[in-house]
């Protein structure tokens, strides 16, 4: 019995187009959400750290609500709510992208906020006492130190994000998870198609966490 006779390999070869499309959608969705989510999250963390009450309150409410509701509910709310909210239907992919990005932004904001606040207040005081401005203090004193706390947590968040995109399949986005459902019903096999996607997801997340680990080591060498 050769490798090609193994059921899983057979499935993979036979249904490769479904899996390839799924891989592409999952990667694009993850990558775009990661970029948008991180950007929004960074802005949100500035709001949260603001000394003014309104931006602080708004960002706190946002973060708590997003972290306190399931991703599956959020994605459905965006998908089915788009008509109610903006008067037009949006594609499943767009809905997933919006929902995953907005969700990730909340977590990223908390990670950045706690990373910045973990730096001793004395660092800011020493810097400001030398006449260094608030912006320069953030850029040259606080952030370089905070990055070392932020990076590992951010890596975890990105790994979670890749896995969470699988919820997009519930609104019909043809991602990896969706591919496995199609293969399940076409091949009448409930188990093996799932093994395949599990392995593919694991390859993505494991590569990403290795990459982040490399970056962390690089940074710690710098001091």
């Amino acid at each position, binding site marked *: 019995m050769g490798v090609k006779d193994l059921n899983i390999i057979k499935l993979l070869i036979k249904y490769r187009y479904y899996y390839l499309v799924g891989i592409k959608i999952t990667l694009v969705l993850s990558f775009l959400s990661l970029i948008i989510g991180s950007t929004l999250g960074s802005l949100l963390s500035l709001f949260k750290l603001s000394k003014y009450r309104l931006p602080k309150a708004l960002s706190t409410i946002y973060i708590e609500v997003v972290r306190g509701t399931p991703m599956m509910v959020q994605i459905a709310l965006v998908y089915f709510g788009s008509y109610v909210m903006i008067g037009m239907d949006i594609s499943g992919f767009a809905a997933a992208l919006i929902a995953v990005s907005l969700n990730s932004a909340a977590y990223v904001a908390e990670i950045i906020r706690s990373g910045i606040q973990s730096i001793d207040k*004395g660092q800011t005081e*020493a*810097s*400001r*006492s*030398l*006449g*260094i401005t608030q912006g320069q203090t953030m850029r040259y004193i606080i952030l370089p130190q905070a990055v070392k706390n932020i990076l590992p947590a951010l890596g975890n968040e990105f790994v979670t994000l890749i896995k969470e995109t699988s919820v997009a399949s519930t609104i019909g986005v043809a991602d990896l998870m969706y591919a496995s459902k199609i293969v399940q019903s076409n091949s009448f096999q409930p188990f093996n198609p799932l093994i395949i996607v599990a392995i593919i997801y694991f390859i993505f997340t494991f590569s990403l966490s290795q990459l982040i680990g490399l970056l962390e080591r690089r940074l710690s060498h710098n*001091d």
Partner: protein
Amino acid sequence: MIKIENLNKYFGDKHILKDINLEIGDGEVIGLIGPSGSGKSTLIRCMNFLELPSSGNVYIDGKNMAKLGKEIDKARQHIGMVFQHFHLFPHKTVLENITLAPILTGRLSKNQAEEKALELLETMDLLDKKEVYPDSLSGGQKQRIAIARSLAMDPKIMLFDEVTSALDPEMVGEVLNVMKGLASTGMTMIVVTHEMAFAKQVADRVIFMSDGEIVEVNTAVELFENPQNLRTKEFLSKVLEY
């Protein structure tokens, strides 16, 4: 010159500084003593506005600190501060710690700043440490680097906030010697300290604070040898007991 008028500071409903009035002339060395919690640190932190007064005014060379707005950073460039826990920048080398502020504020070019830093390290006897990170230094060395970091900005005033309190006893001397040297150059210095012998020897005037009030101000010799106020007497008898 530093002029403080009717300064009050509250933390919540706690009254930390009670109606402080004080004038400090150029080149004066002031020892600020008193029990913990008496408001000494808060008072010098109000001088460079790291702590905002609840009411009252602080004038540095005639300029009202509260009215400076964004210009506060400029004003702080002339007021050095050294902290109890050093607060060196751990991600920067010793040399970078000293050159950072002159470069970022546009005061000196990178080359000028490094030249200046090397000079300062030489006087601190720490030239061989210029490339290391603060982590590998002893407390006394850290504090001397912190002083050098402030001096790199050519300040007119230096504020010292219990700078020897976190040091092992054998390292107190090396830091006090640097401060003594600095005092002899005519630097205006306000020194919050528990080192009574140092205050007596180096300070022109000593201020005794208790419960957020200035209780007694006098020349160092007079205050230590002939205290007028009962609270001053009690405090001195406790700290000079041994």
